[in-house]
Structure formats: structure tokens, C-alpha cells
């Protein structure tokens, strides 16, 4: 029982990371109908920014953990969203209005480019950082079993919840969020209401990249190792999470991410670590067979 709960928490924190990346996929798909295959690389770049920012702070002698974390967070979000913005501007915007596959191919090109760019700048060797957040709190102590949760996992889960609440408010309550949803539902009409669609699309990439940046920071804290290739598998997982939850659906992306994370953790805990990806993707295949629109991707019934 204790082991199960610990693995569940493990899965939740891993799933939080997947979910945060998945939102970037699902938002971009929702608004311009393309899969941004370079989004995994944006996550990887976020993780690198986190490492670099942390090392710079250390060199400057700022080691007080909460202060350092906040600075790293802000710097990482800022720099990574600049990448997101630029990627859209140079790789996708010029192709808007051309045939559907063009931006997809451009996205794959962008993904390869970014991997090589980071590999050239940072070398292929994985970079490691010491674990920053240490210690555990005990949740349940009984004679039969005990459950403890590390501060790190707690931090990841709480940070994700806070981000999700903030993000949901942004999308549902603000004018920016309304413009975003309007473009998603009817881009032509949004333009006719005076919305600068290009700006909204740029902002969508910036928001997606910011969340991926936070995920990158969490990944760095969680595993303590980053390398230029890490965006690929994380990207595939997060994309699967978005599809699992129903691509285009924001709560779906989060749910898909968490499900994938939990399945992976539990499968590695009870069966085999080697086959955890097999388990995760099998669930994806099964869901898609029985619910092709994903878990929450139910098309709305509308009167015409």
C-alpha cells in the first residue's frame, strides 16, 4: 500500500511535467491546426536555460534556495518563451496559408535544427546539477507501512496545480483568453471583430513555451541531468498525452499527461522499467481505438 502510494505520487509529478508540455501541443493545434513537433525541443531548451541560470546564480553566490529558484524560474520562462515566439515567427508564420503539410515539415526541420544547435553550443555530454530540493515529509506513519513524499515531488505537484489554476483563469476570464478561444473557434470571425490574429497566435506560442520552460525546470530538478536529445522522447510522450486527453482540449492535455505519468510509474514499479513506454503507448492505442477523439475531446453538439 505504502509502495503503491509512493509510486502514485511519483507518477503524478512525472505526469505534471508531461501535462505542462502537452498544453503547448494542444493549444497550438487548437489555434492553427498543426502539430508543433519542435515543442519537445522548446522544453529541452527550457531545461538548459534552467541549468545555465542556476549555474550563473551559483557563480554569483546566490544560493538561498527560494530566491535562486524564483530567479531561475523567471529567467527560464522569459528566455524560453522568446524561443517559442521566434520559432513561430520564422518557421510557421511565413507558411500560413500554404498546404497543410508545409508547417509540419518545417516543424520537424526546426526540431532537428534546435537539437543540433544545442548540441553544438553545449556539447553532447549530458549536463548534471546536484539535487537542489532535498528531504522528505512523512505523510502516513503506521505499523504496517509508511508513506513519505519528497519536498521535490511536492514542489512539482503544487507548482503545477498553481500554474494550472493561473492558466485556466487566463484562458477563461481575461480578454486575452477570450481572444485566444475566439481565434480557435472561428479565426475569420475573430479577425472581423478586430482581433489581431497574428498577435494571438504569437502569444499562444509564448504561453506554450512558458509552460514547457517550467516543465524543463522541473525536469532538471527531478532528474538532475539534461542533454540535447531529451526533448525528443519527452515531446513524443507529451504529444501522446495531448492526443490521449483529446487534442485541442486544455483539461484533456493535463489529464492525459497525468494519466501517462501514473501509468508509466506504476508499470515500472510493478512490472518492468524497460517496458514502461510500451505500457504508456499501449494505453494510448487502446483509448484511441475506443475513443478516437481522446478522453475529453468530445466534439460539441451544435445547432447549425
Amino acid at each position, binding site marked *: 500500500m505504502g509502495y503503491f502510494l509512493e509510486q502514485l505520487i511519483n507518477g503524478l509529478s512525472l505526469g505534471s511535467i508531461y501535462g505542462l508540455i502537452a498544453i503547448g501541443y494542444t493549444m497550438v493545434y487548437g489555434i492553427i491546426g498543426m502539430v508543433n513537433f519542435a515543442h519537445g525541443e522548446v522544453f529541452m531548451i527550457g531545461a538548459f536555460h534552467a541549468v545555465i541560470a542556476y549555474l550563473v546564480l551559483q557563480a554569483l553566490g546566490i544560493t538561498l534556495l527560494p530566491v535562486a529558484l524564483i530567479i531561475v524560474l523567471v529567467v527560464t520562462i522569459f528566455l524560453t518563451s522568446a524561443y517559442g515566439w521566434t520559432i513561430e515567427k520564422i518557421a510557421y508564420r511565413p507558411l500560413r496559408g500554404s498546404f497543410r503539410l508545409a508547417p509540419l515539415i518545417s516543424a520537424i526541420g526546426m526540431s532537428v535544427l534546435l537539437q543540433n544547435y544545442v548540441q553544438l553550443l553545449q556539447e553532447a555530454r549530458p549536463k548534471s546539477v546536484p539535487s537542489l530540493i532535498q528531504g522528505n515529509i512523512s505523510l502516513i506513519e503506521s505499523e504496517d507501512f509508511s508513506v513519505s513524499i519528497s519536498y521535490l515531488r511536492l514542489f512539482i505537484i503544487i507548482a503545477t496545480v498553481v500554474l494550472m489554476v493561473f492558466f485556466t483563469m487566463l484562458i477563461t476570464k481575461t480578454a486575452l483568453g*477570450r*481572444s485566444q478561444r475566439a481565434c480557435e*473557434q472561428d479565426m*475569420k470571425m475573430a479577425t*472581423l471583430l*478586430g482581433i489581431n490574429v497574428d498577435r494571438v497566435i504569437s502569444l499562444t506560442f509564448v504561453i506554450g513555451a512558458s509552460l514547457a520552460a517550467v516543465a524543463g525546470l522541473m525536469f532538471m530538478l527531478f532528474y538532475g541531468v539534461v542533454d540535447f536529445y531529451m526533448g525528443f522522447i519527452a515531446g513524443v510522450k507529451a504529444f501522446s498525452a495531448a492526443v490521449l486527453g483529446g487534442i485541442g482540449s486544455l483539461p484533456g492535455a493535463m489529464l492525459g499527461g497525468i494519466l501517462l505519468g501514473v501509468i508509466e510509474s506504476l508499470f515500472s514499479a510493478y512490472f518492468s522499467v524497460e517496458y514502461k513506454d510500451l505500457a504508456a503507448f499501449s494505453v494510448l492505442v487502446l483509448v484511441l481505438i475506443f475513443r478516437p477523439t481522446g478522453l475529453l475531446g468530445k466534439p460539441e453538439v451544435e*445547432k447549425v
Partner: protein
Amino acid sequence: MVDINKQEKANILALKDVHSFYGQVEALRGVSLQVKAGEIVSLIGANGAGKTTLLMTICGKPKAQKGEIIFLNQSIVSKPTHEIIRLGIAHCPEGRHIFPKMTVMENLLMGIAETSKEFFKQDLKRIFDLFPILYDRRTQRGGTLSGGEQQMLAIGRAIISRPKLLLLDEPSLGLAPIIVQKIFATIRQLNKELQMTILLIEQNAYHALQLADRAYVLVNGYITMQGTGQELLTNPEISKAYLGG
């Protein structure tokens, strides 16, 4: 009713020799027309005559290939759509284009998303006075409204920003006759009570001409006739071609 605007007869909108393409097809082949302050101007024509393209070209989507479009004394022909709209043009397109997953309130808010919010409460009240049904439906999603309610919402969303020119594309399309009456009555009300300047496209030529101060007939991308609504209503050619006898 004092109608200062009609005495001044200032041009709100003027098109001069506008050419525009719908895909590969030249849909407008040199259209010139004027809309003056306080007028309802109707544009009638058969399917494919270029009516919708004309309204869309005013909004810069597509851009006019040739010619000049003047709105409130400035050329808007090279401006992007969102800037044209923000100058004070509201476009209520064919097919209503309600945001299906947004509530009625959110749909209305979209009408002022990028303009001033000062008068929002007053404006909202004005819309709800005009269409009380929208108040009852305010928390419902746009996609769940009936066709007539959607059309009312589309008009409400278009006028909430107090546009200087309202473009209406086929507001009666696909609606029950009783609703059509209501929509036309509303258009008249907008014009008479709120002094709104309106450029209206209609297939329902009879209604459109009755409502109009002036009207244009568009055939294959050319303006073939113009005059006051009454003149065109009594014109035998018009009555043969568009009024069914």
C-alpha cells in the same frame, strides 16, 4: 425625428473602381459606391454576383487589387483587417459566425474585445433592450441558440462597439418568416433610433429595397443600377429579375 446626418450627407464610405478576386475569379470588376452618414444602403444581386466579396473587400479580406476605398476620409485599402475594424466598421457576416463554445455574454464581449470598455454596461443594456431573449440566454453557449437567436446575437455583437458603419451580410438567411420580420424591424430601429449607418446585403430584395434609403444592384461584379429604394422597387426590370414578377 431630427435627422442631421441626412442633411449633411457626409460620405462615411466610398468605393472607387474597386477590383477584387474571390480565389482565382475576379468577383468585383470596378465597383464604385457611396454610403452616407445615417443611410441604409442596400446591395441586391443574385448568388455569385459578388455581394459578399464586396463586404469582405471593404474589410480587407481579400484586399482590393485595384481601386480606392475611403472610410471616414482615409484610405483603408492597404490596412490589415483588424485595423480597419478598429476604425469603426462592424461586420456581421453571412452565416452569423457565433463562437459556438462561448457563452452569449462572452460572444458580446468579443464585440468590444479590442475597443473601448467605457460604455460597456450601457451598451450591454442597449443590446438586451433590443433583444430581451439574449438576456435570458446570457449564460448559454452560442452553439446552443436557435438560428434566429444566433442572428440577434450576431447583430448585438456587431453593434455593441458603436460602429460608425455596420455591414450586414444576409441577416435573414435561413430564418423563419416571423424572425425575418423581427430582424428587419431591428435594422430599421438601429438606423432610426441609434442613427446607425448601414450597408446591407440581401437576397430578399423586396425587404431590402423597402428598408433602403438608396440601393445598388450588383450583377457579375458590376453595379448595373442604382437609385433610391422606392425607385428600384418600382423599376420593372428589378421587379422582373429580383422581385418575382
